[in-house]
């Protein structure tokens, strides 16, 4: 019975929206922990938090759920994009059908794919050495070292702009996919989505910029 819910193109969009909103929730949790990096205590609070995250069994289980959500989101994204591409084999010679659509809504697979590349590099820098291997450094040291590099910080900031684009369309779109549309509440959801898609990546982006510029202050 539940299987029918996720079948067909509308069912796939239900998967996209549920996993997408779950990923949005993850972003909030992830950012709120990471903001400890901005505390001027030489990383004491952040390292404690990092230690807690790597040992607590509930967190480990959530990590597996998170990985599954990413996997479902990405696989469904690829399936939908292929279906959508096949549905229009011949292009228009002159196509201005985009005039009523947002740039963000037309580029979801591109912004998503670039966010995925970011994610792989991001995991390789932080998750792999600390969680899969046992690094000599504290997590704070790894973070500091990474973000003092202008290329790494620049790459991070660009990735956050892409995430903003993805969420600019994605956040409100998820509600529409779930059929949650209402004369009164939909405009509020759209505003909330704009706020979310700017503030969350901005918060993530401030951290590398903080470490990058702080190295010159001393």
């Amino acid at each position, binding site marked *: 019975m539940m299987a029918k819910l996720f*079948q067909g193109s509308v069912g796939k969009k*239900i998967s996209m929206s549920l996993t997408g909103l779950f990923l949005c929730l993850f972003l909030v949790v992830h950012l709120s922990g990471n903001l400890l990096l901005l505390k001027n205590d030489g990383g004491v609070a952040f390292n404690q938090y990092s230690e807690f995250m790597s040992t607590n069994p509930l967190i480990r289980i959530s990590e597996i759920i998170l990985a599954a959500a990413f996997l479902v989101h990405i696989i469904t994204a690829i399936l*939908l994009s292929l279906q*959508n591409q*096949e*549905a*229009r084999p011949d292009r228009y010679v*002159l196509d201005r059908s985009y005039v*009523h659509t947002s740039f963000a809504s037309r580029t979801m697979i591109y912004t998503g794919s670039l966010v995925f590349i970011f994610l792989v590099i991001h995991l390789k820098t932080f998750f792999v050495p600390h969680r899969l291997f046992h690094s000599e450094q504290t997590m704070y040291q790894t973070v500091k070292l990474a973000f003092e590099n202008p290329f790494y910080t620049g790459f991070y900031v660009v990735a956050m702009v892409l995430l903003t684009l993805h969420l600019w369309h994605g956040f409100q779109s998820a509600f529409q996919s779930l*059929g949650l549309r209402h004369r009164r509440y939909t405009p509020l959801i759209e505003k909330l989505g704009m706020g979310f898609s700017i503030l969350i990546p901005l918060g993530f982006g401030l951290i590398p910029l903080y470490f990058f510029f702080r190295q010159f202050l001393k």
Partner: protein
Amino acid sequence: MKFTLKIWRQAGPQDLGKLETHSIDGISPHMSFLEMLDVLNERLIREGKEPVAFESDCREGICGACGLFINGRAHGPEEGITTCQLHMRSFKDGDVIYIEPWRAKAFPVIKDLIVDRSAFDRIMRSGGYISVNTGSAPEANSTPVPKEVAEEAFDAATCIGCGACVATCKNASAMLFVAAKVSHLALLPQGKVERKQRVARMLQTMDTEGFGACTNTGACEAECPKKISISHIARLNREHILSSLT
């Protein structure tokens, strides 16, 4: 008025098409777009050439036959109208006008600007009906319907099946069309009997016919000649959830 037309010519479904350029002069700004094409075709026939194949029937915006992709937009530059309701005064003298057929895997070109929209008919056949006794019309007040519900259902029912939503969608998705049909019947008491199976079957046919999925870009509602809102797509999504969970 004078125009340069770049018209898609394609001999048949299996043939490769290409744009053909024609100059046309002496067009009145009050002519409809289709009348302008009629003028061109009369000339082509006089010259012993093959006229441009395009479809039309009512020529007053109610049958949905006339869809053309004009200068990159479904039904041309104006909003809330079909191609037959478009007038040449919407263009500037001397304009170059691109005229193409709807492009979607599910709408194969039959000839020139005519596409086969029978995929829509097959979607309708799979679920776009209600079971009632035929015969004389029922007594109008025997099934009360609240005014707001009747209005909403009527808005959905104004869909003329023109296919502009598919043509303009970057995914060639038929969601607005299916949403209009499902919404119209799901709202009314007459549609309750088949409510659950209707949405399941129509969505399944939509997929097997080769239409794309919905990315919620909103292109369809902007180009729909009947201004059908994507709030009906939200209702379609709800109908799908309800039908698969209960």
